[in-house]
């Protein structure tokens, strides 16, 4: 809001009129799945109208000629057909973006996995930013030093080599997905199919797959094949509800967590009150499990504070100082002489050899997304300001703000279907049927319906949120992006009908 107050011109691309759109200068009701076309056209305009930063492109990018050839066909007129935004608007925004450069940026978005083409959409956005050279420019992106700088690691014995294939398909099925991220829904699918081997147990920490991955019915079927499920969480969420053992973790106000570094500052998370009930910190839970499994050497700390002290071993700051101050800023390191990107070339790969080697497009190319059939709608999902992911729906005050999740339906469409505001409607996809309360509005494209995530809870441990609203996970069909492993959530098409009586 400060940037807007200072004169930043914000353009929002969304099939739905969000609160962000309400505060923006322009809202463009883009057709779902076609953001890639819009951004390709912007790239086309910058290159073919000679509006890009030639010096930055020469010094910090690779593959410009391939990019230029690759986007030749993607004119605003071409994109207008795809994304249903007028060609003049696209051309104007390209001009305005270039005029504001380098004090401008194309935002990568938040929940970005909507369609199978979303990975290349994100690349197109990164390329746009490179073309105007906004790195380390006021109003652009800031390059930061590597994560974790300054903190010591705890000494552990070497980890034994795992001989089996990872159940989530990384890297044998998803060669480009980082090992530390993984593909959650693939664990579920492979547990269900027994391929490449049958899994028997699942230890789940800070994840809630029953709510967070598509096709909840399928997730519960996979749970049924398990002999043993353990869930560690701060609330009795839906996954905990279907687990054999729940290890209650203390909330963030009650526990220590390992120290983290953001930019050049170390932040501490420390208990404001003692943990309630039987809850314990994650550090305590894992150490106890390790010791009982005869693996105590891998948890070389006496308690939480000792863990943090060891992390600080190489730094001129004590845990006591950190606890008092809340943070510690490391002495400034000399500014790096030059920008280095974490890519094979050390530059921005406008054309990616890594992708090409795996058989994907080196330069983002248009990929046609699926469209709703007769009587169908795109099912959109997205966050609301009141709730954090799927974890806060049971909070007394937040529950009061939004006790359930209505289904947004375009007013004209609703009238045609004889649906009035507040009516109960049945939403049906390939994998599920869920009732919702209708919210009829001008604020959504006629070919879409929308609801927010995290409702329709199964767990009776969530006394307020239990059975309130509907779960979009019950409706989502599983589509996994072969490059990023992300779930393409907006590719699910649904039918809606009024529930009579």
């Amino acid at each position: 809001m400060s940037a807007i107050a200072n004169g930043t011109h914000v353009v929002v691309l969304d099939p739905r009129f969000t609160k962000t759109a309400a505060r923006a200068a322009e809202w463009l009701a883009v057709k779902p799945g076609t953001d890639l076309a819009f951004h390709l056209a912007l790239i086309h305009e910058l290159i073919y109208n000679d509006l890009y930063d030639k010096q930055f492109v020469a010094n910090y990018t690779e593959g410009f000629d391939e990019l230029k050839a690759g986007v030749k066909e993607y004119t605003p007129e071409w994109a207008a057909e795809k994304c249903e935004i007028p060609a003049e608007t696209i051309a104007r925004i390209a001009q305005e973006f270039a005029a504001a450069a380098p004090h401008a940026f194309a935002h990568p978005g938040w929940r970005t996995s909507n369609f199978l083409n979303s990975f290349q959409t994100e690349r197109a956005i990164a390329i746009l930013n490179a073309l105007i050279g906004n790195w380390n420019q006021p109003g652009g992106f800031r390059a930061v030093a590597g994560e974790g700088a300054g903190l010591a690691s705890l000494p552990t014995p070497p980890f034994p080599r795992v001989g089996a294939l990872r159940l989530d398909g990384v890297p044998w099925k998803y060669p480009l997905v980082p090992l530390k991220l993984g593909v959650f829904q693939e664990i579920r699918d492979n547990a269900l199919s027994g391929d490449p081997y049958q899994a028997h147990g699942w230890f789940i920490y800070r994840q809630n797959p029953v709510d967070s991955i598509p096709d909840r019915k399928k997730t519960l079927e996979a749970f049924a094949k398990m002999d043993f499920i353990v869930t560690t969480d701060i609330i009795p969420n839906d996954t905990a509800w279907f687990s054999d053992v729940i290890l209650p973790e203390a909330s963030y106000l009650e526990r220590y967590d390992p120290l983290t570094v953001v930019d050049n500052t170390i932040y501490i998370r420390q208990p404001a009150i003692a943990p309630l009930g039987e809850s314990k910190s994650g550090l305590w839970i894992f150490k106890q499990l390790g010791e009982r499994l005869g693996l105590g050497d891998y948890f070389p700390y006496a308690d939480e504070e000792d863990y943090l002290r060891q992390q600080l071993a190489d730094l001129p700051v004590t845990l006591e100082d950190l606890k008092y101050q809340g943070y510690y800023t490391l002495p400034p390191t000399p500014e790096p002489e030059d920008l280095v990107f974490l890519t094979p070339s050390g530059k921005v790969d406008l054309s990616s050899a890594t992708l090409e080697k795996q058989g994907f497009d080196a330069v983002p190319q248009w990929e046609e997304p699926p469209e709703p059939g007769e009587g169908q709608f795109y099912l959109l999902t997205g966050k609301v300001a009141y709730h954090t992911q799927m974890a806060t729906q049971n909070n007394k005050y937040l529950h009061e703000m939004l006790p359930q999740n209505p289904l947004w339906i375009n007013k004209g469409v609703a009238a045609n279907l004889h649906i009035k505001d507040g009516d109960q409607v049945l939403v049906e996809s390939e994998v599920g049927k869920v009732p919702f309360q209708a919210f009829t509005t001008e604020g959504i494209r006629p070919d879409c319906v929308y609801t927010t995530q995290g409702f329709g809870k199964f767990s009776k441990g969530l006394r307020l949120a239990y059975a309130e609203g509907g779960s979009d996970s019950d409706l989502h069909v599983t589509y996994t992006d072969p490059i990023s492993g992300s779930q393409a959530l907006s590719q699910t098409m649904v039918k809606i009908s009024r529930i009579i009586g």
Partner: protein
Amino acid sequence: MATKKKYGFVIDVRRCIGCNACTVACKEQWKVPVGHSRNWVLDMGIQGSFPDLTQTFITGQCMHCDDPPCVAACPSEATYKREDGLVVIDEDTCIGCGYCIPACLYDARFYNEEKGVADKCNGCFDRVEEGELPACVATCVGGARMFGDLNDPDSQVSRMIRENQTVRLVTDETNPGPNVYYIGLPEELYSEVAPHPSELPAAGKVWKKGVIPVVGLAVGATVIGQAIAFGAQLLKGESIDE
């Protein structure tokens, strides 16, 4: 001598994102019962026709008026205006008669069933005395809520009032001197947030003249229930003379 403080709020409507963080922070700060809140975010809904749409959020609370009708209406002097301008309720003195509730021109008051008293924003006076901002201001995500000393020309609120066009929620007929200044409030929405005419024109007078002695006797005794019933009657618009 230092100038007397006069606390007030400035609300920049253009910066409100409708997240209700102010509402939740206040509820947590003051343990406000579910079903009530001391401040609010009025969501005017999505206006216009697809795709030419707007949506405005107007946040508000007690206006800490110069001439507060609630103070005049209070028979037990539980509601009073502090030296620093904040209008507060002394919960120990409040008899829960509810008389102040319709007296407020901005519907900023409610009856707190858990405590048996009238309730509303008190400007987080205790936080302010400690040099902190009210909870709603401290948490405001968009920077829409501002608070400070209107008598201090260097305060953020004074500067904002000086540098921007502001409006206060008053009409020609009704002006209790509210100390909340709005920036960027769309003119077509004035009527949505204007003060309603006082529902109890002679209220203060009647209480002060005839009823105070009676209630005075009743305060602290077993007749509080009657006083509440009395208040409830008034809420329904029945006159005392009946």
